[in-house]
Structure formats: C-alpha cells, structure tokens
C-alpha cells in the first residue's frame, strides 16, 4: 500500500508496546495501580511522565477501584484517559466498570490477562476479562505484542467515536505477551497523534434546555449518571446496547483506516479467519494461542487436512453475523476457552459461539476445550489432538464429550 508509513522496529515486550502506544496517543490522564503482569505498563508510563516525554496527569491511587473511578470521572470532563490492570485489580474495579460504561466514558484499559485467585496464580488466562464480559466494555484480544500496540492506538478512536462512546479493554495474555520481547513496528509520534486526533463530543440537551457538548464543564453545566429509576434506567441501558451495535461498524472502519497507514490488519478487525474458506474442521480461540494454532493449521494443510482457524479478536461486541458467515462451510468446530464458567457446561466463548450457531439451519458440531488455566502451556501437539478429535467426530458423526480439558491430569 502506497500510504503505508515508514516505521521503526522496536524490541518491546507486550506491556512496553502498550505503554508506548499510550504515550503516542496524547493521553490526558492515567490513573493506575500496579499489579502483575500489567505493572510494566504503568511503570513505563510513569517514566514517560517523569522524563517530561508526555503531558499526561499521572494519578497514583490507593486501589484499582479508585483507579477506575478517577479514570471515568476524568473522562467525563472530556479528558482522554488510559489505565491498565490484571485479574485481582480488574475484579476490584468491577463496580466502577459498570459506572464507566453507564456514564459512556470512553476509557481505554489494557488488561494483561491473568488467572484469578484462589489459589494465587499470576500467570495468563482469560478468567479476569471473561468475568467482566457483561460490564458494557468493548473487549479486544491481541494475538501478539504488535497487535497489542496497534489495538491500543485504535481503541481510543473506537471508544471516543460519538456513535460508540463506550470504554474499551485491550487484552494481552499475561507473560506470554506481557513479558515476552518481540519486534514491534512503531508508527512515528506525529502519525499516531494525527490518527487519534482530538476527542469529539456530541451535543446533548442540558437541564437548562441548551444544546451543550457531552462533557462536564462548569461553563456549560450538565449532570452525568444521576438517579434513573423504574421509568428511565431501562432506556439508558438500551442506549448502551446501541453503542455496542455501532461499535461493530466503527471497529471495522478504524481498523481499515489504521491498516492503510500501518500496513497491518487482523482480519476485518472483529474476526481473523485463517485458512477457513474450504475448511471442514476449525478451531476458534482468542489471544496468543492463535499463533500456535496457525502453526498446527499449516502442518495439517501440508498433510492435506482441511483445517482452519477463526480467531475472535473482538469478543464484545460479539460479531454474530461474521461468525455465522465464517463458519458456514465448516462441519465441526472446537471452541477453546481459557477460562471456566463453573457449572455452566463449558466456557464462555463456547456458550456464545454455540448460541450464535443455533440460528443456522445446518449448524456444525460444536465442542469445547478448556485449556491453559493459570498459565499452563498449550503446545502444538495438544492443538493437533483437538483437530484429530474433530476428524473423529466427522468420521463417527458422534460427539462423545462436548466439553473437555486440554493438558489436565486425571
């Protein structure tokens, strides 16, 4: 592409890539509390602040609950706001996550995905963000550090879009991405600054009957997020759903525009299919595991097996139509879940993919594999076994166990 900008190759781990993206995105306020495996992000960012490399107000808070409160309220005043956290920190933010989305505060937050206690475990899985899937936040999962960088830059444009106005989580697998050094292509500062632009504000009718920008401004006062009871609360929640619907379109648009300057794209920004066109069997997963699955798909293809992968990059909003279309020729699907929904018959991604396919008249077999909890490694041989299971299902036309565990000792 002619418009692709020349970029520096940087040696960064996922956390540093995220901090670098936030540094370039003209962020006004960062309020954060350190927690493994996210700590490097805010440590690095605080260095930028201390060195005068950014004009960001860095607020050191006493907890993640306060971090999210500071972020959403700063965002309500019109500030571009960023934070980062991981499992226990995200869990402590739980209440304020709903307040942020309810206040339509376009906060961008990186989550270095980590297991939830107990027992204590600091390593990667998706238990933390899956527990927040209904909090009204957009969720984007990166496959590698490059994508974590790209996604954070895009996230500001998505969150702040006036048709969306919803906070965004960019997930990167703890340690696998957060602490692993990779080559990351960084756009020039000016290019990112221009891409993210300035925040725009829709006009709203104030209590004085005036059309004023949607932000807290003492000169043009409005009230955000006060009491709404039986007669209006429901309507405000319906508006949030509308923001999610619009996000499906805006994420694709922003992703496409970014691809034109960066030369990088991840499917359509929502879903990344890999060798799916003629695939008979396919795996669905999120995050860094997709890299391993792609290797296995390459091996299987070399052996003549029609194997494919569908990586869900955007989990919220769930790209329903895209999933249906991507899987239309697939006969058997294995959904990989890196978290558990205890007592829920499989993991959350499995639930949702199966639910989406209910509306398709001839849907494929859909089975679930729980894997990688607490950072347990999932290697190519284990993924290959999943594809072999799918082949067996097609041969026998029978599913013996709809939900299985990968690499678990009996």
């Amino acid at each position, binding site marked *: 592409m002619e418009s692709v900008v020349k970029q520096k190759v940087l040696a960064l781990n996922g956390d540093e890539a995220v901090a670098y993206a936030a540094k370039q995105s003209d962020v006004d306020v960062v309020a954060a509390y350190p927690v493994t495996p996210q700590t490097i992000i805010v440590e690095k960012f605080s260095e930028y602040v201390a060195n005068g490399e950014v004009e960001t107000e860095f607020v050191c808070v006493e907890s993640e609950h306060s971090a999210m409160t500071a972020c959403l309220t700063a965002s309500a005043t019109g500030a571009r706001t960023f934070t980062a956290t991981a499992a226990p920190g995200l869990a402590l933010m739980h209440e304020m996550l709903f307040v942020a989305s309810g206040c339509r505060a376009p906060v961008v937050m990186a989550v270095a995905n980590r297991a939830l206690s107990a027992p204590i475990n600091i390593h990667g899985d998706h238990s933390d963000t899956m527990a927040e899937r209904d909090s009204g936040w957009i969720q984007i999962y990166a496959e590698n550090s490059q994508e974590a960088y790209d996604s954070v830059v895009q996230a500001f444009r998505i969150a702040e879009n006036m048709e969306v106005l919803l906070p965004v989580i960019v997930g990167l697998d703890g340690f696998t991405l957060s602490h692993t050094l990779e080559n990351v292509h960084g756009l020039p500062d000016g290019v990112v600054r221009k891409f993210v632009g300035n925040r725009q504000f829709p006009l709203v009718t104030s*209590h004085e009957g005036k059309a004023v920008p949607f932000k807290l401004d003492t000169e043009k006062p409005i009230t955000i997020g006060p009491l709404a009871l039986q007669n209006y609360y429901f309507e405000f929640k319906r508006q949030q759903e509308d923001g999610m619907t619009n996000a499906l379109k805006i994420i694709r648009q922003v992703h496409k525009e970014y691809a034109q300057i960066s030369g990088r794209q991840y499917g359509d920004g929502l879903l990344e299919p890999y060798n799916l066109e003629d695939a008979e069997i396919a795996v669905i997963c999120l995050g860094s595991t997709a890299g391993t699955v792609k290797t296995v798909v390459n091996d299987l293809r070399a052996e003549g097996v029609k194997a494919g992968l569908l990586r869900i990059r955007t989990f919220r909003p769930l790209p329903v139509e895209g999933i249906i279309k991507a899987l239309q020729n697939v006969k058997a699907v294995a959904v990989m879940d890196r978290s558990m929904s205890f007592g829920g018959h499989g993991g959350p991604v499995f639930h949702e993919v199966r639910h989406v396919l209910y509306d398709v008249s001839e849907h494929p077999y859909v089975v679930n594999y729980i894997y990688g909890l607490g950072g347990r490694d999932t290697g190519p041989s284990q993924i290959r076994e999943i594809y072999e299971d799918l082949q067996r299902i097609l041969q026998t036309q029978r599913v013996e166990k709809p939900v299985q565990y990968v690499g678990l000792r009996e």
Partner: protein
Amino acid sequence: MTTQEKGWKEIPPAGVCWKPSTEYLTGDWKTYKPVRDLEKCTRCLLCVIFCPDGAIHWNGEKEDIEFDYDFCKGCGICANECPTEAIEMKLE
C-alpha cells in the same frame, strides 16, 4: 411506563438531565409530612436553614414560613431540630 415518557432514542446518553431539578417533583417520596403548630412556632427559621431540600421558605408578605410539599421528602430533620417542638411528622 406511561406513554408520556420518552423513548431511548429521544433521551441524552448516560442519564444526562434534560430538565432542571425544579421540574422533578420529589415531594411524593414522603411517608411522613411535617405539620406545624402555629402556637408553638416562634418563627426562628432554624427549620428553613436545616431543610436539606430547601423546601421550607420564608414568606415576607405573610411574615411566616411555608412548607413546599412538592419538594419536601419527609425526612423529619425540621421536626428534629425545632427548638420548641412545633413540628410534628404525621403519616400522609
């Protein structure tokens, strides 16, 4: 709820108030209503100062206080603070 209420496409986002608070009559929240004994009341105006909703006014023409029951939520602070116990909270 009722047909007069606006739909979700018609209202601003995030609960932004499109009417001033003077148009939300909160007086119907109350269970107990302050009733004044005119004999006991010395017009000291402590109740006017203490009322958290500004629902007790001094009427200069009448030279007396007035309860604004459209906004009185029936909290009973006035009755509690009244030095002459001139205000009684009565079930509505």
